[in-house]
């Protein structure tokens, strides 16, 4: 596809804000989505290991990890909606073509994810007391399907970066192939890299858990120490594995991305992985802590930025595709609506939800909210009421104009 065609494939409706805003949000929300995905994969793998293990610590860990996995799938899906939205807005020519060319896989993604989620719930409900043989295997099926869903996403993203091959995929030997049944492009190194990162991120999560549990169950030192040891090991060993996969990815980049492995962006990604490896030493985290998870979040954000830089290198460097030339039809109302809702309604509601869940989790008895937490809830509720009122106010204003 030449650059004129790529530009023609852009939406003629344009964008309601400058593309740079969507780009920043895309990177940010994708990074947050991936952290949830990593915790989801890591906790499912740990729950699975625990379900099949005879070791008391592993078996004990399996329960909370299954709970974590269940919530993490939800959070991963919910946050994943945002990058899915933003990628369609600024990279529509690439995303839509790639999806159509593998349409059956794009649809299969939904079914695969659904079965994976329900299989996890099957183990949760049937296998509460350690799991029956069947439910343990359903958890294994769940993990396998989650990995398959990730692979489909990976393939769709990879295909989007190869406009020069689209026509050959759509009309091999000049004849239209409209079934959308093929996976046309993938990079095993890249896929494994993003999967393997689940180990250090989950390791950091375990270190946070150790700290959290320490306050609630201070007499449980042997188990908590074991937990911290596992977290540290996952961070270091997983970090090294990620480094190897990253090298494999870089070694197999297409010619259109030549030079990227030695770019500043790539050096930044390497530094982020090294940071994950060194985190246990840096934080002396035998007793756990929240610092490692905050560090892991920062590292994933750096990696997400490097990933976006690679996309830019390929689309702009090779094909001349400039994001900044996307037509803008500024819409002030919807811009303001999102910003105020995000900061006001979302900010208060999520802060309140996290605060009350956090405090209630630490309290063995019934938790009575502190005045501060209670006030936060009041603000969240008031912000919601104001939001609904403005919706109808502007609605009637438009109708009566």
């Amino acid at each position, binding site marked *: 596809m030449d650059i004129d065609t790529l530009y023609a494939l852009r939406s003629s409706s344009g964008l309601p804000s400058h593309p740079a805003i969507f780009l920043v949000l895309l990177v940010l929300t994708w990074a947050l989505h991936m952290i949830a995905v990593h915790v989801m994969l890591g906790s499912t793998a740990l729950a699975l290991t625990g379900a099949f293990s005879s070791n008391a610590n592993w078996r004990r860990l399996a329960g909370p990890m299954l709970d974590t996995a269940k919530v993490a799938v939800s959070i991963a899906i919910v946050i994943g909606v945002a990058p899915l939205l933003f990628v369609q807005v600024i990279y529509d020519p690439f995303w839509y073509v790639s999806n159509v060319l593998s349409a059956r896989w794009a649809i299969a993604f939904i079914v695969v994810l659904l079965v994976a989620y329900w299989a996890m719930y099957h183990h949760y409900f049937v296998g509460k007391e350690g799991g029956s043989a069947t439910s343990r295997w359903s958890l294994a099926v769940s993990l396998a399907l989650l990995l398959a869903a990730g692979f489909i996403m990976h393939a769709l993203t990879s295909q989007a970066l190869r406009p020069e091959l689209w026509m050959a995929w759509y009309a091999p030997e000049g004849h*239209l192939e409209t079934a959308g049944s093929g996976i046309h492009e993938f990079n095993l190194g890249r896929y494994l890299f993003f999967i393997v990162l689940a180990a250090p991120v989950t390791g950091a999560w375990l270190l946070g858990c150790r700290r959290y549990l320490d306050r609630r169950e201070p007499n449980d030192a042997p188990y908590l120490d074991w937990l911290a040891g596992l977290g540290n090991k996952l961070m270091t060993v997983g970090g090294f594995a990620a480094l190897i996969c990253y090298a494999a990815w870089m070694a197999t980049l297409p010619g259109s991305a030549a030079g990227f492995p030695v770019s500043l962006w790539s050096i930044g990604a390497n530094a982020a992985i090294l940071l994950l490896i060194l985190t246990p030493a840096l934080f002396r985290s035998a007793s756990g802590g929240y610092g490692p998870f905050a560090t892991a979040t920062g590292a994933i954000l750096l990696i997400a930025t490097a990933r976006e830089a690679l996309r830019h290198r390929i689309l702009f460097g090779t094909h001349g595709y400039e994001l900044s030339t996307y037509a803008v039809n500024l819409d002030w109302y919807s811009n303001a609506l999102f910003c105020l*809702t995000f900061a006001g309604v979302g900010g208060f509601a999520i802060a309140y939800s996290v605060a009350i869940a956090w405090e209630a989790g630490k309290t063995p008895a019934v938790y009575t909210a502190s005045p501060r937490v209670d006030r936060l809830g009041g603000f969240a509720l008031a912000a919601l009421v104001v939001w609904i009122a403005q919706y109808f106010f502007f609605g009637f204003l438009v109708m009566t104009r």
Partner: protein
Amino acid sequence: MDNSNEILGLYPTWYQPALGSGWVLGIIAVIHVLASHTSVGAALVSTWLATVAVRRNRPELLEYVRRYGVFLLVFSYVLGSITGPGIWFSATVASPRGLSALIHSYVWWWATEWVFFFIEVVGIYLLVYLAGKVDGRSYLKIAWIFGLASWATMLIIVGILSFMMWPGQERWFTEGGTLNGFFGLYTFAQILSRTCFMLMAAALAGGLIAAYLRDGAFRLEMTRKLAWVGILGAVLGAVFFQWGLTTLPESAQLLMKTRLPGSFVPAMWAILTAIVIYFFALLLRPGTLNAPLAAGMMVGLLIFGIWPEERARESMRKPYVAGQFVYSNQIIARDVPALGVKSELPALEARGMLALHPFMPEHLRQIGEGNELEAGHALAIVYCSNCHGLGTTGTRPFGEMFAGNRDAADIERFIKGALVTGNMVNMPRIPLHDDEAHALAQFIASLPLWHSITR
């Protein structure tokens, strides 16, 4: 950069011969509507019940809210949260430019809905896991934040769906502005009718939980409460739905009268009547409630209520798929001066689809003796396959069109008389060149042969 004279921004086509891409999208959408309607309605019902439970200090009611929440988590939230993006995925492959037009105009509204969706998902976990573990005042706050956030997701999506049918204000075409596209009478009618139907769906789903209650008296009380919610939801929903139909433009009304199967209206009334009778029966004899009956009613609502309703909505906006400017076959058919959008029909009229489609093999750009059937097939793929099966399967298959007539000349006459001129109210105008119309007619006439070759 404007390349409208050189090449059009048309995507490759996904053709699904067994079902049709529209049906794949429809199936996912209908499942999503059931799950999302149930979850929004249930959020409102749960907020009400949680308020009663806390104010009157009734722990058994709180336990009902918790169990209802667990059911919602496993059913509505898993199914709803996955099929939600699922609609995007299926629309991406079935109707990329229609979806793109919506997303590029309403991205910030969707992002705002995402904020509420996030609050809602966190809220359902809190509602379930903090039941009985926090003080009553806090639990009430959690319930109300959850309920209102859930309803707000509906407020946003209803406006986008309304725009999909018809921009709220005619001036949207010239002035732009998402508010102008979002708000019209139809938007408000939908808010009312959907809220009521959501409460009805929630009452049906709540029956499933009530059926498992062991405390007989409490079970009867819950069954009666839910029955009243269901009756009010069904009756008021039907009233507002009727009002919503009157707010639609004349062309949509015409399409509804002429293009929908005769069974549509009776089927809708039948399912509503059955649901109202069901709830009245529960009021009179609440002891008859059981899980298979409640589940059966939900499946009935899905198959006989939501499916035909969604199909009708789809039919009424034909030949457009979004905002009355993107045709169902993905071609932009109308100028939208406010956005700088230009109709692609003049370019197609001047140069033809084969010349302008970016994903057309080079040997099909010109029609000659050796490629006529293949060019006809390519035209059918681009122009027709969104709505028609190109054989004997899928939706409205060509094999069953033209009353079995396979005379190429007759088919070509029809194409030139009705389609090239845009004389069919429910079909897009298809500005084929003479040689393109001839090739398409040859392809349709040769369908049995073509199928035997390509099967």
